[in-house]
C-alpha cells in the first residue's frame, strides 16, 4: 500500500474510532446515531437472517441494469452524435444544462405509465446516468489526436479498424471517466428513487426503518450501501490508476 493509501486508511479508522467513542460515551445520543460496532453487528444479523436478501437482489439488480444500459446506450448515442455535427450543435446546450433539471419530478408520471414495477426506477436511473456517458464519449472522441487518424491512413485502416484499433483506445481514459460517473449517478438515482416511492428495495427499506424509528435496521442498511459503494468505487479507482500509470508514466 502507498503512503497516501496508509494515511487515507488511518483517517477513516480515526473517524470511525471517534464516532464509536462519541456514541459509547453518550456524547452522541444513540437515538440519533448508533455506534459503528452496533451498525456492523446489526448488519451481520440482518444478512444472516435473510430478511433483506430479496431487497438486496432487487436493488443491486436494478443498479446493474441501469449502469449497463446507461453505459451501452450512452456510448452508442455519443458515437452517433459525434458523427452528426449539426445534431451535436443543437444538443450541446441541452447537455450543458441537463443536470440542472431534477429528473425525479418525472417519477409520478413514470409510475402512472409503468405501474409500481422496477421499470420507472430503471428509467429514472438511466435518465440520470446516461448523459454523463454521452458527454464523456463526445469528449473522448474530440480529444483523439488528429495525427492518429493520419497514422490510420498510412496503415490503410478502414473506418471500423480505425475506430476499434485507434480511436477507442485513444478515447478510453475519457470513456472510463464516463463509466465511473454513470456508476455513481446510477447508484444514487436508484437508491433515491426507491427511497421516495418504490414499494420495495433497499432504499424503501431505509425509508421504512426511518419512519419506524428503527435505528439499528436503518444504520445497518446504510452501512451496507456504503460498503457496496466503497468497494465498487475503489475497484474503479484502482483500474483508473492502473490506466493512468500507463498513460502518464506513473504520474496519475
Amino acid at each position: 500500500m502507498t503512503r497516501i493509501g496508509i494515511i487515507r486508511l488511518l483517517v477513516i479508522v480515526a473517524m470511525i474510532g471517534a464516532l464509536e467513542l462519541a456514541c459509547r460515551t453518550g456524547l452522541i445520543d444513540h437515538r440519533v446515531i448508533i455506534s459503528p460496532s452496533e451498525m456492523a453487528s446489526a448488519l451481520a444479523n440482518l444478512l444472516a437472517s435473510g430478511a433483506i436478501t430479496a431487497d438486496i437482489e432487487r436493488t443491486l439488480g436494478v443498479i446493474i441494469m441501469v449502469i449497463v444500459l446507461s453505459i451501452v446506450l450512452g456510448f452508442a448515442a455519443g458515437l452517433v452524435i459525434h458523427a452528426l455535427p449539426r445534431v451535436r450543435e443543437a444538443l450541446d446546450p441541452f447537455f450543458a444544462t441537463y443536470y440542472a433539471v431534477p429528473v425525479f419530478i418525472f417519477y409520478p408520471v413514470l409510475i402512472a405509465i409503468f405501474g409500481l414495477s422496477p421499470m420507472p426506477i430503471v428509467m429514472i436511473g438511466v435518465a440520470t446516468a446516461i448523459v454523463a456517458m454521452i458527454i464523456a464519449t463526445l469528449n473522448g472522441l474530440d480529444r483523439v489526436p488528429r495525427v492518429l487518424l493520419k497514422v490510420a491512413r498510412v496503415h490503410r485502416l478502414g473506418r471500423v479498424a480505425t475506430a476499434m484499433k485507434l480511436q477507442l483506445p485513444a478515447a478510453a481514459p475519457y470513456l472510463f471517466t464516463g463509466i465511473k460517473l454513470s456508476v455513481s449517478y446510477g447508484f444514487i438515482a436508484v437508491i433515491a428513487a426507491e427511497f421516495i416511492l418504490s414499494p420495495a428495495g433497499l432504499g424503501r427499506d431505509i425509508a421504512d426503518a426511518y419512519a419506524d424509528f428503527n435505528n439499528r435496521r436503518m444504520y445497518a442498511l446504510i452501512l451496507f450501501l456504503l460498503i457496496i459503494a466503497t468497494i465498487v468505487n475503489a475497484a474503479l479507482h484502482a483500474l483508473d490508476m492502473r490506466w493512468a500509470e500507463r498513460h502518464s508514466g506513473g504520474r496519475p
Partner: protein
Amino acid sequence: MHGDLHARLAGVTRVYPGAGAHPPVHALVPVDLELYKGEFFAIVGPSGCGKSTFLEVLAGLQQPSAGTVTFEGKTVRGEVADGIGVVFQEDASFPWLTVWDNAAFGLRRNGIREAEVRRRVEDALAFMGLKDFARAYPSQLSGGMRQRVCIARTLVLQPRLILLDEPFGALDAQTRLLMGDEVLRLWRRTGATVFLITHALDEAAMLADRIGAMSARPGHFIEIIETRWPRERDSTIVAEPAFGKITGRLWERLRGESLKALGHSAMAPAAAAAE
C-alpha cells in the same frame, strides 16, 4: 549522376477551399519534383509555406487540386501506396501499447506471421536503441525515444520511401543532432529514399543529398541545392566549411521568404536602410 526515378510530382497544386467569409487558400502553386531511388531529399521553407501539404500530397494523404503524383510508376490517388512510410512531427505513438506492440502494430495489421513479426520488431528496436525499453509504455520515455518508437513502427514495414514530417521539431538541439545521425544510419541501412521536411536549415544541410528551398505561401521551389556529401556521413560534418556554405546559401534564399511569411517587406537590409 541521379539514379532511377522513384517518385514524381508533376504540376501539383493544392488549394484548400474557402469556407464562409474565408477565401480559398492556395497552399501549393504548380510544383514539379523528381525523387530518385535511394536519395535523401529535404525541404526547407518558412512557416506555413506548404511543406507539410507537399508531404501529405506525396504520401497520398491529400489529393492534389491539379497535377499528378506517381510512386514507382503508379499514380498516387488519395491513398497511401504500399511501400510508403510516414513519420509525423507530433507524437504518434500509441500510449496504450508497449514499445514492442507499437512497433509490431503495422505488421500484425498486415497479417504477418508472428515469428516474422518478432524478428523484424527485435531488429528495429535494436537498431533504434530501444531494445531495453520493449516492455515500457511511451509515457515512460522521453520525447526523442517516443519519436524513435514511431520510426521503428515505420521501419518494420520496410518502406521504400520514408517521409519524415519535421520529426525532430519538438526536440532540443543536441538530441536533434543525434537523431539526425540515426536517420542517416537508417537511410544507409535500408537503402530507402528519404524525404524530410524541416524548418531547421542546419538539419537539412547535414542530412540531405538535395535540399529544396520553398517560397512563402503559395509554396513552390525557389532553388534546389545539391550538397554533394558522401553517403557515409554523420553529424560531425557540421564542422566542415562546406556545411557553413550550404546553410548560408539556404538562408540567403529563404530570408526574404521568411520575412514575407511574417508579413514584412522582403527587401534586403541595405535597401531598407537606404529607404
